[in-house]
Protein backbone atom coordinates (compact mmCIF):
# COMPACT_ATOMS: atom_id res chain seq x y z
CA UNK A 1 0.00 0.00 0.00
CA UNK A 2 1.29 3.43 -0.91
CA UNK A 3 1.68 6.24 1.61
CA UNK A 4 -1.43 8.28 2.38
CA UNK A 5 -1.80 11.47 0.37
CA UNK A 6 -2.29 13.42 3.58
CA UNK A 7 -1.93 12.51 7.21
CA UNK A 8 -1.70 14.23 10.57
CA UNK A 9 0.04 12.98 13.71
CA UNK A 10 -1.05 14.19 17.12
CA UNK A 11 -2.20 17.57 15.86
CA UNK A 12 -3.22 19.90 18.71
CA UNK A 13 -4.25 23.53 19.07
CA UNK A 14 -5.53 25.65 21.94
CA UNK A 15 -6.89 29.18 22.00
CA UNK A 16 -6.12 30.15 25.57
CA UNK A 17 -7.86 27.47 27.61
CA UNK A 18 -10.17 26.46 24.78
CA UNK A 19 -9.03 23.24 23.15
CA UNK A 20 -9.97 23.40 19.48
CA UNK A 21 -7.92 20.45 18.29
CA UNK A 22 -6.59 17.61 20.37
CA UNK A 23 -4.46 14.70 19.23
CA UNK A 24 -5.89 14.56 15.74
CA UNK A 25 -4.69 11.61 13.68
CA UNK A 26 -6.12 11.22 10.23
CA UNK A 27 -4.90 9.42 7.15
CA UNK A 28 -6.35 10.16 3.77
CA UNK A 29 -5.36 7.69 1.02
CA UNK A 30 -5.11 9.01 -2.52
CA UNK A 31 -8.33 9.50 -4.44
CA UNK A 32 -10.73 8.89 -1.57
CA UNK A 33 -13.74 11.18 -0.96
CA UNK A 34 -13.92 12.01 2.73
CA UNK A 35 -16.66 13.85 4.53
CA UNK A 36 -15.82 15.66 7.76
CA UNK A 37 -18.87 16.03 9.96
CA UNK A 38 -19.61 17.07 13.51
CA UNK A 39 -21.71 19.54 15.48
CA UNK A 40 -21.01 23.25 15.31
CA UNK A 41 -17.82 24.15 17.14
CA UNK A 42 -16.42 20.64 16.77
CA UNK A 43 -13.27 22.09 15.22
CA UNK A 44 -13.82 21.13 11.58
CA UNK A 45 -12.80 24.46 10.05
CA UNK A 46 -9.98 24.75 12.58
CA UNK A 47 -8.66 21.42 11.35
CA UNK A 48 -8.64 22.73 7.77
CA UNK A 49 -6.91 25.90 8.94
CA UNK A 50 -4.28 23.82 10.71
CA UNK A 51 -3.69 21.49 7.79
CA UNK A 52 -3.39 24.35 5.27
CA UNK A 53 -1.11 26.43 7.49
CA UNK A 54 -3.54 29.28 8.16
CA UNK A 55 -3.09 28.36 11.83
CA UNK A 56 0.05 27.00 13.41
CA UNK A 57 -0.48 23.90 15.56
CA UNK A 58 0.79 23.79 19.17
CA UNK A 59 1.88 20.21 18.64
CA UNK A 60 1.82 17.48 16.04
CA UNK A 61 2.86 17.01 12.46
CA UNK A 62 1.27 17.23 9.04
CA UNK A 63 2.51 15.00 6.25
CA UNK A 64 1.79 15.44 2.57
CA UNK A 65 2.93 12.44 0.53
CA UNK A 66 5.11 11.50 3.52
CA UNK A 67 6.89 14.87 3.47
CA UNK A 68 6.64 16.90 6.67
CA UNK A 69 4.95 20.20 5.79
CA UNK A 70 4.13 21.33 9.34
CA UNK A 71 6.34 24.40 9.12
CA UNK A 72 5.69 25.38 5.50
CA UNK A 73 3.87 28.67 4.80
CA UNK A 74 0.40 28.32 3.24
CA UNK A 75 1.34 29.32 -0.30
CA UNK A 76 4.05 26.69 -0.46
CA UNK A 77 1.63 24.01 0.71
CA UNK A 78 -0.62 25.04 -2.16
CA UNK A 79 2.29 24.70 -4.57
CA UNK A 80 2.72 21.13 -3.33
CA UNK A 81 -0.90 20.35 -4.06
CA UNK A 82 -2.64 20.89 -0.72
CA UNK A 83 -5.49 23.28 -1.48
CA UNK A 84 -8.60 24.52 0.30
CA UNK A 85 -11.77 26.46 -0.36
CA UNK A 86 -13.61 28.72 2.06
CA UNK A 87 -16.95 28.34 3.78
CA UNK A 88 -17.71 32.01 3.20
CA UNK A 89 -16.92 33.24 -0.30
CA UNK A 90 -13.44 34.63 -0.29
CA UNK A 91 -13.00 35.80 -3.84
CA UNK A 92 -11.68 38.71 -5.90
CA UNK A 93 -14.80 40.90 -6.22
CA UNK A 94 -13.53 43.27 -8.91
CA UNK A 95 -11.80 40.69 -11.08
CA UNK A 96 -13.80 38.86 -13.72
CA UNK A 97 -14.31 35.14 -13.34
CA UNK A 98 -11.77 34.49 -16.07
CA UNK A 99 -9.22 36.89 -14.59
CA UNK A 100 -9.56 35.27 -11.15
CA UNK A 101 -8.96 31.76 -12.42
CA UNK A 102 -6.23 32.90 -14.82
CA UNK A 103 -4.53 34.52 -11.86
CA UNK A 104 -4.54 31.22 -9.99
CA UNK A 105 -3.20 29.36 -13.04
CA UNK A 106 -0.46 31.97 -13.54
CA UNK A 107 0.62 31.65 -9.92
CA UNK A 108 0.97 27.91 -10.44
CA UNK A 109 2.98 28.19 -13.66
CA UNK A 110 4.96 31.07 -12.12
CA UNK A 111 3.94 33.34 -14.98
CA UNK A 112 2.68 35.67 -12.24
CA UNK A 113 6.23 36.84 -11.65
CA UNK A 114 6.50 38.20 -15.16
CA UNK A 115 5.90 41.93 -15.45
CA UNK A 116 7.47 42.60 -18.81
CA UNK A 117 5.08 40.58 -20.99
CA UNK A 118 1.40 41.20 -21.54
CA UNK A 119 -1.14 38.79 -20.08
CA UNK A 120 -2.81 37.94 -23.43
CA UNK A 121 0.51 36.41 -24.53
CA UNK A 122 -0.11 33.60 -22.03
CA UNK A 123 -2.53 31.67 -24.17
CA UNK A 124 -1.91 28.38 -22.41
CA UNK A 125 -2.81 29.82 -19.01
CA UNK A 126 -5.88 31.65 -20.30
CA UNK A 127 -7.16 28.59 -22.14
CA UNK A 128 -6.69 26.43 -19.07
CA UNK A 129 -8.63 28.90 -16.94
CA UNK A 130 -11.36 29.02 -19.54
CA UNK A 131 -11.55 25.22 -19.65
CA UNK A 132 -11.91 25.03 -15.87
CA UNK A 133 -14.72 27.57 -15.98
CA UNK A 134 -16.38 25.71 -18.85
CA UNK A 135 -16.28 22.45 -16.93
CA UNK A 136 -18.13 24.18 -14.10
CA UNK A 137 -20.66 25.70 -16.53
CA UNK A 138 -19.32 29.21 -15.99
CA UNK A 139 -18.02 29.91 -19.50
CA UNK A 140 -20.98 32.11 -20.35
CA UNK A 141 -20.28 34.47 -17.47
CA UNK A 142 -16.49 34.35 -17.58
CA UNK A 143 -16.15 38.06 -18.41
CA UNK A 144 -18.46 39.22 -15.65
CA UNK A 145 -17.05 40.67 -12.45
CA UNK A 146 -17.08 38.13 -9.65
CA UNK A 147 -19.22 40.34 -7.44
CA UNK A 148 -21.93 40.48 -10.10
CA UNK A 149 -22.32 36.70 -10.23
CA UNK A 150 -25.10 34.74 -8.54
CA UNK A 151 -24.22 33.28 -5.17
CA UNK A 152 -24.17 29.70 -6.45
CA UNK A 153 -21.84 30.73 -9.28
CA UNK A 154 -19.54 32.35 -6.77
CA UNK A 155 -19.40 29.08 -4.84
CA UNK A 156 -18.31 27.42 -8.09
CA UNK A 157 -15.57 30.02 -8.55
CA UNK A 158 -14.23 29.02 -5.13
CA UNK A 159 -13.85 25.52 -6.55
CA UNK A 160 -12.52 26.79 -9.89
CA UNK A 161 -9.77 28.71 -8.07
CA UNK A 162 -8.82 25.58 -6.16
CA UNK A 163 -8.77 23.47 -9.32
CA UNK A 164 -6.55 25.99 -11.09
CA UNK A 165 -3.80 25.15 -8.61
CA UNK A 166 -3.96 21.47 -9.71
CA UNK A 167 -4.55 20.06 -6.24
CA UNK A 168 -3.60 16.59 -5.07
CA UNK A 169 -5.54 17.02 -1.86
CA UNK A 170 -8.57 19.29 -1.88
CA UNK A 171 -10.16 20.48 1.36
CA UNK A 172 -13.63 21.93 0.82
CA UNK A 173 -15.08 23.89 3.72
CA UNK A 174 -18.85 23.58 3.29
CA UNK A 175 -18.71 23.94 -0.49
CA UNK A 176 -22.51 24.21 -0.70
CA UNK A 177 -22.99 26.60 2.25
CA UNK A 178 -25.90 28.90 1.52
CA UNK A 179 -26.73 27.26 -1.78
CA UNK A 180 -30.31 25.99 -2.35
CA UNK A 181 -30.64 22.21 -2.15
CA UNK A 182 -31.13 21.57 -5.85
CA UNK A 183 -28.11 23.63 -6.79
CA UNK A 184 -25.99 22.06 -4.10
CA UNK A 185 -26.55 18.66 -5.71
CA UNK A 186 -25.20 20.04 -8.97
CA UNK A 187 -22.27 21.47 -7.11
CA UNK A 188 -21.51 18.14 -5.50
CA UNK A 189 -21.90 16.41 -8.83
CA UNK A 190 -19.11 18.68 -10.08
CA UNK A 191 -16.99 17.68 -7.10
CA UNK A 192 -17.76 14.00 -7.64
CA UNK A 193 -16.68 14.39 -11.24
CA UNK A 194 -13.17 15.48 -10.26
CA UNK A 195 -10.25 13.31 -11.27
CA UNK A 196 -9.92 10.12 -9.25
CA UNK A 197 -6.33 11.07 -8.45
CA UNK A 198 -7.47 13.94 -6.25
CA UNK A 199 -8.10 13.24 -2.60
CA UNK A 200 -11.10 15.23 -1.40
CA UNK A 201 -12.15 16.08 2.14
CA UNK A 202 -15.32 18.12 2.50
CA UNK A 203 -17.16 19.57 5.47
CA UNK A 204 -20.91 19.25 4.99
CA UNK A 205 -23.94 19.41 7.26
CA UNK A 206 -26.46 17.92 4.85
CA UNK A 207 -26.31 14.19 5.61
CA UNK A 208 -27.99 13.23 2.39
CA UNK A 209 -25.12 14.82 0.46
CA UNK A 210 -22.58 13.27 2.81
CA UNK A 211 -23.93 9.78 2.34
CA UNK A 212 -24.25 10.20 -1.38
CA UNK A 213 -20.83 11.63 -2.18
CA UNK A 214 -18.46 10.46 0.53
CA UNK A 215 -16.74 7.09 0.49
CA UNK A 216 -15.59 7.57 4.07
CA UNK A 217 -16.67 9.81 6.93
CA UNK A 218 -14.76 11.38 9.81
CA UNK A 219 -16.79 12.56 12.80
CA UNK A 220 -15.34 15.29 15.00
CA UNK A 221 -16.63 16.36 18.39
CA UNK A 222 -15.06 18.88 20.75
CA UNK A 223 -11.78 19.14 18.84
CA UNK A 224 -11.29 15.37 18.67
CA UNK A 225 -11.87 12.75 16.04
CA UNK A 226 -14.69 10.66 17.47
CA UNK A 227 -14.78 7.97 14.84
CA UNK A 228 -13.94 7.28 11.21
CA UNK A 229 -15.59 4.81 8.88
CA UNK A 230 -17.77 4.14 5.89
CA UNK A 231 -21.03 6.08 5.72
CA UNK A 232 -22.87 2.91 6.67
CA UNK A 233 -20.74 2.33 9.76
CA UNK A 234 -21.13 5.95 10.79
CA UNK A 235 -24.90 5.87 10.39
CA UNK A 236 -25.18 2.88 12.68
CA UNK A 237 -22.60 3.99 15.21
CA UNK A 238 -24.27 4.49 18.60
CA UNK A 239 -21.72 7.13 19.71
CA UNK A 240 -22.38 9.22 16.64
CA UNK A 241 -26.10 8.86 17.05
CA UNK A 242 -25.80 9.97 20.65
CA UNK A 243 -23.85 13.08 19.66
CA UNK A 244 -26.32 14.02 16.99
CA UNK A 245 -29.53 12.97 18.72
CA UNK A 246 -28.40 14.67 21.90
CA UNK A 247 -28.32 17.99 20.05
CA UNK A 248 -30.76 19.99 18.03
CA UNK A 249 -29.33 18.53 14.82
CA UNK A 250 -30.70 15.07 15.61
CA UNK A 251 -32.93 15.15 12.56
CA UNK A 252 -29.92 15.24 10.28
CA UNK A 253 -28.83 11.70 11.05
CA UNK A 254 -32.18 10.28 10.00
CA UNK A 255 -31.87 11.62 6.47
CA UNK A 256 -29.89 8.71 4.99
CA UNK A 257 -32.70 6.26 5.65
CA UNK A 258 -34.79 7.99 3.04
CA UNK A 259 -31.89 8.59 0.68
Amino acid at each position, binding site marked *: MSAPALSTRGLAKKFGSLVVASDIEIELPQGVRYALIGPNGAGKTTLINLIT*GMLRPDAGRILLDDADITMLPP*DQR*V*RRGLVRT*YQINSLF*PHLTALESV*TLAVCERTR*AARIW*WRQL*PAYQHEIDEAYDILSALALAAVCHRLTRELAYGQQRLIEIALALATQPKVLLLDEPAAGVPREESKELFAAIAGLSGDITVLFIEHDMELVFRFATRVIVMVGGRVLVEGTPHEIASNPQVRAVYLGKATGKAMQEPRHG
Partner: protein
Amino acid sequence: MALAEKVTSPQLYLQAQTRWRPVEIAFWLATLLPYVLFPNYLSLASQIAVTALFALSLDLILGYAGIVSLGHAAFFGVGAYTAGLLSKYGWGEPLTGLAMAALAAGIVGYATSFVICRFRHLALIMLTLGFGLLLTELANSAGWLTGGLDGLQGIHTWKLLGYFRFDLYGYAAYSYALAVLFALFLFARRIIHSPFGLSLRGIRENLIRMPAIGAPSRAHIRTIYTIAAAIAGIAGAVLAQTTETVSLDSLGFERSAEVVVMLVLGGTGRLYGGLVGAIIYMVARDQFSGVVPQYWYFWIGILLVAVVVFLPNGVLGGLAKIASRWSRP
Protein backbone atom coordinates in the same frame (compact mmCIF):
# COMPACT_ATOMS: atom_id res chain seq x y z
CA MET B 1 -19.69 44.60 -22.47
CA ALA B 2 -20.24 45.16 -26.17
CA LEU B 3 -16.83 43.64 -26.79
CA ALA B 4 -17.83 40.38 -25.14
CA GLU B 5 -20.35 39.70 -27.85
CA LYS B 6 -18.07 40.57 -30.73
CA VAL B 7 -15.14 38.34 -29.82
CA THR B 8 -15.42 34.74 -28.79
CA SER B 9 -11.95 33.71 -27.69
CA PRO B 10 -11.15 34.67 -24.10
CA GLN B 11 -7.63 35.50 -25.18
CA LEU B 12 -8.85 38.02 -27.74
CA TYR B 13 -11.14 39.50 -25.14
CA LEU B 14 -8.25 40.10 -22.76
CA GLN B 15 -6.19 41.45 -25.62
CA ALA B 16 -8.92 43.95 -26.42
CA GLN B 17 -8.67 45.25 -22.86
CA THR B 18 -4.98 46.06 -23.19
CA ARG B 19 -5.53 48.01 -26.41
CA TRP B 20 -5.11 51.79 -26.45
CA ARG B 21 -8.43 53.58 -26.24
CA PRO B 22 -9.06 56.78 -28.22
CA VAL B 23 -9.45 58.79 -25.02
CA GLU B 24 -5.94 57.74 -23.95
CA ILE B 25 -4.46 58.90 -27.23
CA ALA B 26 -6.39 62.15 -26.89
CA PHE B 27 -4.99 62.62 -23.37
CA TRP B 28 -1.40 62.27 -24.51
CA LEU B 29 -1.93 64.55 -27.49
CA ALA B 30 -3.38 67.10 -25.07
CA THR B 31 -0.14 67.07 -23.09
CA LEU B 32 1.41 68.86 -26.08
CA LEU B 33 -1.07 71.75 -25.80
CA PRO B 34 0.95 73.79 -23.27
CA TYR B 35 3.56 74.47 -25.97
CA VAL B 36 0.92 76.25 -28.04
CA LEU B 37 -1.66 77.49 -25.55
CA PHE B 38 0.36 78.31 -22.42
CA PRO B 39 3.96 78.94 -23.46
CA ASN B 40 4.40 81.11 -20.37
CA TYR B 41 3.44 78.25 -18.07
CA LEU B 42 5.89 75.64 -19.28
CA SER B 43 7.81 75.51 -16.03
CA LEU B 44 4.52 74.90 -14.18
CA ALA B 45 3.71 72.25 -16.79
CA SER B 46 7.03 70.53 -16.18
CA GLN B 47 6.38 70.50 -12.43
CA ILE B 48 2.98 69.01 -13.10
CA ALA B 49 4.58 66.31 -15.23
CA VAL B 50 7.03 65.52 -12.41
CA THR B 51 4.23 65.37 -9.87
CA ALA B 52 2.14 63.24 -12.20
CA LEU B 53 5.00 60.78 -12.47
CA PHE B 54 5.31 60.72 -8.69
CA ALA B 55 1.56 60.10 -8.35
CA LEU B 56 1.79 57.35 -10.99
CA SER B 57 4.40 55.59 -8.89
CA LEU B 58 2.14 55.78 -5.85
CA ASP B 59 -0.77 54.41 -7.86
CA LEU B 60 1.25 51.28 -8.62
CA ILE B 61 1.41 50.42 -4.92
CA LEU B 62 -1.73 52.09 -3.56
CA GLY B 63 -4.12 51.66 -6.47
CA TYR B 64 -2.96 48.25 -7.60
CA ALA B 65 -1.53 46.45 -4.59
CA GLY B 66 -3.51 48.29 -1.89
CA ILE B 67 -0.43 49.52 -0.02
CA VAL B 68 -1.32 52.86 1.57
CA SER B 69 1.80 54.95 2.07
CA LEU B 70 2.21 58.29 3.81
CA GLY B 71 5.94 58.31 3.28
CA HIS B 72 6.27 57.91 -0.45
CA ALA B 73 8.13 61.23 -0.76
CA ALA B 74 11.09 59.51 0.88
CA PHE B 75 11.89 57.90 -2.46
CA PHE B 76 11.19 61.09 -4.36
CA GLY B 77 13.67 62.84 -2.07
CA VAL B 78 16.29 60.13 -2.32
CA GLY B 79 16.11 60.42 -6.10
CA ALA B 80 16.25 64.21 -5.99
CA TYR B 81 19.27 64.30 -3.68
CA THR B 82 21.05 61.58 -5.64
CA ALA B 83 20.71 63.45 -8.92
CA GLY B 84 21.43 66.76 -7.23
CA LEU B 85 24.57 65.55 -5.48
CA LEU B 86 25.86 63.84 -8.60
CA SER B 87 25.49 67.08 -10.47
CA LYS B 88 26.96 69.21 -7.71
CA TYR B 89 30.06 67.04 -7.52
CA GLY B 90 30.77 67.12 -11.21
CA TRP B 91 28.47 64.77 -13.10
CA GLY B 92 25.55 66.77 -14.47
CA GLU B 93 24.56 64.47 -17.33
CA PRO B 94 20.77 64.20 -16.92
CA LEU B 95 19.99 60.69 -18.21
CA THR B 96 22.66 58.87 -16.21
CA GLY B 97 21.54 61.04 -13.30
CA LEU B 98 18.06 59.57 -13.67
CA ALA B 99 19.45 56.07 -13.75
CA MET B 100 21.49 56.62 -10.59
CA ALA B 101 18.49 58.19 -8.85
CA ALA B 102 16.34 55.21 -9.81
CA LEU B 103 19.00 52.87 -8.51
CA ALA B 104 19.40 54.68 -5.18
CA ALA B 105 15.65 55.00 -4.57
CA GLY B 106 15.15 51.41 -5.70
CA ILE B 107 17.73 50.14 -3.22
CA VAL B 108 16.11 52.06 -0.36
CA GLY B 109 12.72 50.79 -1.52
CA TYR B 110 13.91 47.21 -1.72
CA ALA B 111 15.48 47.38 1.73
CA THR B 112 12.33 48.76 3.35
CA SER B 113 10.01 46.45 1.39
CA PHE B 114 10.93 43.57 3.67
CA VAL B 115 9.18 45.36 6.52
CA ILE B 116 6.41 46.86 4.37
CA CYS B 117 5.24 43.53 2.98
CA ARG B 118 4.36 42.22 6.44
CA PHE B 119 1.82 44.90 7.33
CA ARG B 120 -1.49 46.31 6.16
CA HIS B 121 -3.82 49.21 6.81
CA LEU B 122 -3.15 51.47 9.80
CA ALA B 123 0.13 49.81 10.73
CA LEU B 124 1.36 50.34 7.20
CA ILE B 125 0.37 54.01 7.21
CA MET B 126 2.26 54.54 10.48
CA LEU B 127 5.28 52.62 9.22
CA THR B 128 5.58 54.58 5.99
CA LEU B 129 4.92 57.82 7.84
CA GLY B 130 7.60 57.06 10.41
CA PHE B 131 10.03 56.03 7.75
CA GLY B 132 9.46 59.28 5.85
CA LEU B 133 9.95 61.41 8.95
CA LEU B 134 13.09 59.51 9.81
CA LEU B 135 14.61 60.15 6.41
CA THR B 136 13.66 63.84 6.50
CA GLU B 137 15.45 64.32 9.81
CA LEU B 138 18.44 62.37 8.53
CA ALA B 139 18.68 64.71 5.54
CA ASN B 140 18.21 67.68 7.85
CA SER B 141 20.99 66.66 10.20
CA ALA B 142 23.37 65.78 7.40
CA GLY B 143 23.64 69.46 6.44
CA TRP B 144 27.22 69.06 5.23
CA LEU B 145 25.91 66.83 2.46
CA THR B 146 22.36 68.00 1.77
CA GLY B 147 22.62 71.65 2.66
CA GLY B 148 20.02 71.07 5.37
CA LEU B 149 17.27 73.68 5.58
CA ASP B 150 18.99 75.87 2.99
CA GLY B 151 18.60 73.17 0.41
CA LEU B 152 21.16 71.72 -1.94
CA GLN B 153 22.81 74.50 -3.92
CA GLY B 154 25.25 74.49 -6.78
CA ILE B 155 23.55 71.98 -9.03
CA HIS B 156 24.36 72.39 -12.67
CA THR B 157 22.58 70.14 -15.13
CA TRP B 158 24.37 69.58 -18.39
CA LYS B 159 22.68 69.96 -21.75
CA LEU B 160 20.20 67.23 -22.46
CA LEU B 161 21.71 64.80 -24.99
CA GLY B 162 24.52 67.33 -25.23
CA TYR B 163 22.30 69.74 -27.11
CA PHE B 164 19.20 71.05 -25.29
CA ARG B 165 19.87 73.55 -22.55
CA PHE B 166 17.58 73.82 -19.50
CA ASP B 167 16.64 77.50 -19.54
CA LEU B 168 14.20 79.77 -17.74
CA TYR B 169 11.49 79.39 -20.37
CA GLY B 170 11.10 75.73 -19.65
CA TYR B 171 10.87 74.31 -23.17
CA ALA B 172 13.58 71.80 -22.50
CA ALA B 173 12.38 71.18 -18.96
CA TYR B 174 8.82 70.39 -20.01
CA SER B 175 9.89 68.29 -22.97
CA TYR B 176 12.26 66.35 -20.75
CA ALA B 177 9.74 65.85 -17.91
CA LEU B 178 7.01 64.90 -20.37
CA ALA B 179 9.22 62.43 -22.22
CA VAL B 180 10.28 60.77 -18.96
CA LEU B 181 6.66 60.68 -17.76
CA PHE B 182 5.48 59.12 -21.00
CA ALA B 183 8.24 56.52 -21.08
CA LEU B 184 7.56 55.45 -17.50
CA PHE B 185 3.83 55.52 -18.09
CA LEU B 186 4.35 52.98 -20.89
CA PHE B 187 6.42 50.95 -18.46
CA ALA B 188 3.73 51.10 -15.76
CA ARG B 189 1.05 50.25 -18.29
CA ARG B 190 3.01 47.19 -19.32
CA ILE B 191 3.30 46.09 -15.71
CA ILE B 192 -0.39 46.35 -14.94
CA HIS B 193 -1.35 44.43 -18.07
CA SER B 194 1.09 41.63 -17.28
CA PRO B 195 0.38 38.46 -15.29
CA PHE B 196 2.22 40.16 -12.41
CA GLY B 197 -0.18 43.09 -12.71
CA LEU B 198 -3.07 40.66 -12.39
CA SER B 199 -1.50 39.33 -9.19
CA LEU B 200 -1.25 42.85 -7.82
CA ARG B 201 -4.96 43.32 -8.40
CA GLY B 202 -5.51 40.03 -6.64
CA ILE B 203 -3.55 41.35 -3.65
CA ARG B 204 -5.64 44.51 -3.61
CA GLU B 205 -8.89 42.57 -3.89
CA ASN B 206 -8.22 39.86 -1.33
CA LEU B 207 -4.82 39.52 0.25
CA ILE B 208 -5.98 36.70 2.53
CA ARG B 209 -7.02 34.57 -0.42
CA MET B 210 -3.71 34.90 -2.26
CA PRO B 211 -1.74 32.26 -0.32
CA ALA B 212 -4.65 29.86 -0.80
CA ILE B 213 -4.08 29.97 -4.57
CA GLY B 214 -0.37 29.46 -4.06
CA ALA B 215 0.65 33.08 -4.51
CA PRO B 216 3.77 34.43 -2.80
CA SER B 217 2.09 37.78 -2.01
CA ARG B 218 4.97 39.15 0.00
CA ALA B 219 7.42 38.61 -2.84
CA HIS B 220 4.98 40.32 -5.21
CA ILE B 221 4.63 43.27 -2.81
CA ARG B 222 8.40 43.58 -2.48
CA THR B 223 8.79 43.68 -6.27
CA ILE B 224 6.18 46.37 -6.89
CA TYR B 225 7.31 48.42 -3.89
CA THR B 226 10.85 48.48 -5.27
CA ILE B 227 9.66 49.41 -8.75
CA ALA B 228 7.43 52.20 -7.38
CA ALA B 229 10.30 53.52 -5.26
CA ALA B 230 12.58 53.66 -8.30
CA ILE B 231 9.99 55.54 -10.35
CA ALA B 232 9.40 58.00 -7.51
CA GLY B 233 13.17 58.48 -7.38
CA ILE B 234 13.23 59.29 -11.08
CA ALA B 235 10.47 61.87 -10.56
CA GLY B 236 12.55 63.49 -7.81
CA ALA B 237 15.60 63.48 -10.04
CA VAL B 238 13.76 65.23 -12.87
CA LEU B 239 12.67 67.95 -10.44
CA ALA B 240 16.20 68.36 -9.11
CA GLN B 241 17.68 68.53 -12.59
CA THR B 242 15.14 70.93 -14.06
CA THR B 243 14.98 73.32 -11.07
CA GLU B 244 18.66 72.85 -10.18
CA THR B 245 17.86 72.85 -6.50
CA VAL B 246 16.74 70.28 -3.91
CA SER B 247 15.09 71.27 -0.66
CA LEU B 248 14.15 69.24 2.39
CA ASP B 249 10.47 69.35 1.51
CA SER B 250 11.21 67.12 -1.48
CA LEU B 251 11.10 64.21 0.97
CA GLY B 252 8.87 65.78 3.59
CA PHE B 253 5.56 64.66 4.99
CA GLU B 254 3.66 67.33 3.13
CA ARG B 255 4.73 66.01 -0.24
CA SER B 256 3.80 62.46 0.80
CA ALA B 257 0.35 63.61 1.89
CA GLU B 258 -0.18 65.79 -1.18
CA VAL B 259 0.48 62.97 -3.58
CA VAL B 260 -2.06 60.77 -1.80
CA VAL B 261 -4.59 63.61 -2.09
CA MET B 262 -3.89 63.96 -5.81
CA LEU B 263 -4.26 60.27 -6.42
CA VAL B 264 -7.53 60.10 -4.51
CA LEU B 265 -8.78 63.17 -6.39
CA GLY B 266 -8.00 61.60 -9.74
CA GLY B 267 -8.99 58.06 -8.85
CA THR B 268 -6.85 55.14 -7.69
CA GLY B 269 -6.05 52.01 -9.66
CA ARG B 270 -6.52 53.57 -13.09
CA LEU B 271 -2.98 54.72 -14.05
CA TYR B 272 -4.43 58.01 -15.27
CA GLY B 273 -5.84 58.91 -11.84
CA GLY B 274 -2.54 60.25 -10.56
CA LEU B 275 -1.96 62.16 -13.79
CA VAL B 276 -5.36 63.81 -13.80
CA GLY B 277 -5.19 64.42 -10.04
CA ALA B 278 -1.80 66.10 -10.37
CA ILE B 279 -3.10 68.37 -13.12
CA ILE B 280 -6.20 69.39 -11.14
CA TYR B 281 -4.28 69.89 -7.90
CA MET B 282 -1.34 71.82 -9.31
CA VAL B 283 -3.43 74.03 -11.60
CA ALA B 284 -5.90 74.73 -8.77
CA ARG B 285 -3.07 75.61 -6.42
CA ASP B 286 -1.52 77.89 -9.00
CA GLN B 287 -4.83 79.67 -9.62
CA PHE B 288 -6.10 79.85 -6.03
CA SER B 289 -2.80 80.90 -4.56
CA GLY B 290 -2.72 83.76 -7.06
CA VAL B 291 -6.03 85.04 -5.67
CA VAL B 292 -5.96 84.21 -1.96
CA PRO B 293 -2.58 82.67 -1.16
CA GLN B 294 -3.18 82.18 2.57
CA TYR B 295 -6.44 80.29 2.11
CA TRP B 296 -5.27 77.89 -0.55
CA TYR B 297 -5.73 74.82 1.63
CA PHE B 298 -9.30 75.86 2.34
CA TRP B 299 -10.18 75.32 -1.31
CA ILE B 300 -8.24 72.13 -1.68
CA GLY B 301 -10.03 70.91 1.47
CA ILE B 302 -13.41 71.59 -0.07
CA LEU B 303 -12.34 69.93 -3.30
CA LEU B 304 -11.15 66.85 -1.46
CA VAL B 305 -14.30 66.51 0.66
CA ALA B 306 -16.51 66.99 -2.39
CA VAL B 307 -14.67 64.37 -4.42
CA VAL B 308 -14.63 61.77 -1.66
CA VAL B 309 -18.33 62.30 -0.87
CA PHE B 310 -19.69 62.56 -4.40
CA LEU B 311 -17.09 60.70 -6.45
CA PRO B 312 -15.76 57.91 -4.23
CA ASN B 313 -13.68 56.58 -7.12
CA GLY B 314 -12.19 59.95 -7.92
CA VAL B 315 -12.75 62.21 -10.88
CA LEU B 316 -11.90 59.47 -13.35
CA GLY B 317 -14.17 56.99 -11.58
CA GLY B 318 -17.00 59.49 -11.90
CA LEU B 319 -16.30 60.04 -15.58
CA ALA B 320 -16.12 56.30 -16.24
CA LYS B 321 -19.52 55.87 -14.59
CA ILE B 322 -21.07 58.58 -16.73
CA ALA B 323 -19.47 57.10 -19.85
CA SER B 324 -20.77 53.60 -19.10
CA ARG B 325 -24.31 54.91 -18.52
CA TRP B 326 -24.10 56.79 -21.74
CA SER B 327 -22.93 53.86 -23.82
CA ARG B 328 -25.60 51.50 -22.50
CA PRO B 329 -28.80 51.68 -24.51
